[in-house]
């Protein structure tokens, strides 16, 4: 059943509504039903979660009798952003993922954030699906703040992703949706996969398989599920090498995403189309695997072109 989570009037003949699909079992279920919430679209330019929501609901509806818990799907936390290809909240140029937990008597943006948190609170688990940004492509991964790793890593391992990245606590991230919910005891997993403004069906299907497996382990789904792939788990900051552009230009990759690389191997070149020159050749600083690669070719000095997970962090 489609429900409105929050609504607010816009100045000229329009109401902004944030909606969810509230899916409940068709058959009687004994005891308290578990609830999972799937959230996406906090950043209006990240669209991978759109296909995940569609495919999840489609598969549930196909075998609805196997549903034994509640699934809430929130496909568009920032509807104006999605509609206008805007990462933040249009009109304010604010990153919605820096507004949580919001405030019920605050401005429109804070009010919406607070209504969303209130609605998702009470879930047994929540998944917040992001799609990197328009510049970088990410392998399906879950990012976990080290403050919450005990609660989250066991759940993340069920989600069929390739990589679990445990990062240090950062004050700025306290204003994210995931931090707000994790602090309230709602285990919330942040998925990053694919790239902004695009849908990568293979990644989406991989995650949907994982969500069904997680739902099965929580008693929300009784149908068959896959055996999830075993992710690489890294919590050591030294496991990750950052590759930043040494100069402004056009980045052209020489390798594929998620490829094993040897130290010194060419990852890509920064070229100057005006003079026909190669400005820099980016080499792999270590043996490792490339889990982030730049998608958007124009770079400024400092722009991130990739991230490598060092070979030492990989399983034998």
């Amino acid at each position, binding site marked *: 059943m489609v429900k409105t989570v929050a609504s*607010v009037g816009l100045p000229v*003949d329009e109401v902004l509504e944030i909606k969810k699909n509230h899916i409940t079992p068709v058959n009687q279920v004994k005891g308290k039903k578990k609830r999972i919430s799937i959230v996406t679209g906090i950043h209006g330019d990240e669209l991978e979660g759109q296909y995940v929501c569609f495919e999840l609901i489609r598969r549930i509806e196909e075998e609805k009798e196997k549903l034994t818990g509640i699934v809430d799907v929130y496909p568009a936390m920032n509807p104006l952003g999605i509609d206008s290809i805007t990462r933040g909240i249009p009109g304010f140029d604010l990153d919605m993922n820096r507004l949580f937990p919001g405030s019920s008597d605050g401005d429109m943006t804070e009010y919406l954030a607070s209504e969303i948190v209130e609605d998702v609170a009470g879930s047994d688990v929540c998944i917040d699906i992001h799609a990197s*940004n328009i510049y970088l492509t990410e392998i399906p991964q879950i990012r976990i703040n080290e403050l919450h790793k005990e609660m989250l890593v066991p759940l993340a391992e069920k989600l069929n992703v390739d990589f679990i990245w445990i990062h240090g606590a950062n004050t700025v991230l306290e204003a994210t949706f995931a931090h707000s919910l994790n602090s309230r005891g709602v285990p919330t997993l942040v998925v990053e996969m694919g790239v902004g403004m695009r849908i990568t069906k293979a990644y989406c299907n991989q995650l949907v398989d994982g969500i069904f497996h997680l739902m099965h382990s929580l008693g929300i789904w009784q149908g068959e599920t896959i055996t999830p792939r075993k992710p690489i788990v890294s919590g050591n900051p030294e496991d990750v090498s950052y590759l930043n552009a040494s100069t*402004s230009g056009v980045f052209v990759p020489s390798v594929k995403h998620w490829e094993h690389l040897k130290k010194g191997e060419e990852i890509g070149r920064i070229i100057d189309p005006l003079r026909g020159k190669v400005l820099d050749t980016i080499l792999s600083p270590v043996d490792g695997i490339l889990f982030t690669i730049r998608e958007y070719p*124009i770079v400024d000095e400092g722009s991130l072109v990739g991230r490598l997970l060092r070979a030492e962090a990989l399983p034998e």
Partner: protein
Amino acid sequence: MKKKTIYEINSLYRDNFRVTGYEFGNGKKSVCVVGSIRGNEIQQLYTCSQLIRRLKRMEAEGKLIKGHKILVIPSINPYSMNIKKRFWPTDNTDINRMFPGYHLGETTQRIAAGVFEAIKDYEYGMQFASFYMPGEFTPHVRMMKAGYESVELARKFGMPYVVLRNTRPYDTTTLNYNWQIWETRAFSIYTTTTAQVNKESAGMAIRSILTFLAKQDIVEYCGHEGYCSRVIEDTELVAVRTKVAGIFESDVKVGDEVTKGQQLARVIDPYEGEVTEILTAPIDGVVFFEHNDPLTYADTAVIKLIAGEAL
């Protein structure tokens, strides 16, 4: 005066990105003033330009006291100003959310790091700041309570108000916060406007800075003594919020004294022209902030009042 490049990066097709500073005097690093960090901060740029003009004249007249260095940076982000974009051209990041910066990091982290390296050791840091919502302010000095703030120093500007506010998670990456962490006495100075030039409040900001510098024996200046600043916490500001969205029409200006029950503004139906909401003053007070966009959303704090009489 020495004009120097504080930070520079090359570009594929644009002129190099340069942060330019104007240095006055020699000696210990006493004062650093930063103008615009975002592309729409035209008033902040203008105010700095007028301050530089004034300091040049004072230097020629021998009114800068020896032993002090004053650095003024009119804009940290000329690239965004030139394309009328608020944040960084390629990735829309905010340089004022990147401090203290990282010289091996992404572009705006590098800019923040390069600029911060040049400005972090000054005794006093002043930034002409702006607000994310469209609106006008009564001129004031604002300080974050990061543990190093001094109200008594802030009052030496002689601006009408000193506003204190608690730090929030996102503040930890702003220039003002990091200045304080590096033991610079940091002040955010709000003039009336952001995207439009307001000469009167720019003039007040310059007089206030010169008054402050004179009191600290950094310049010779016999201007006004200024106001005996009133110190308020930002939680004391009383917000007047819209219940409905529409066309916003105000009956008051910033700095006006209002009485409880007085009509402050109206919201008008954008199609039928009827008044859909009348906003009135919940207290006797002074208009501190006012929304200045012709449209308003619902649930928006369009006016903020300070209780009491005008100064």
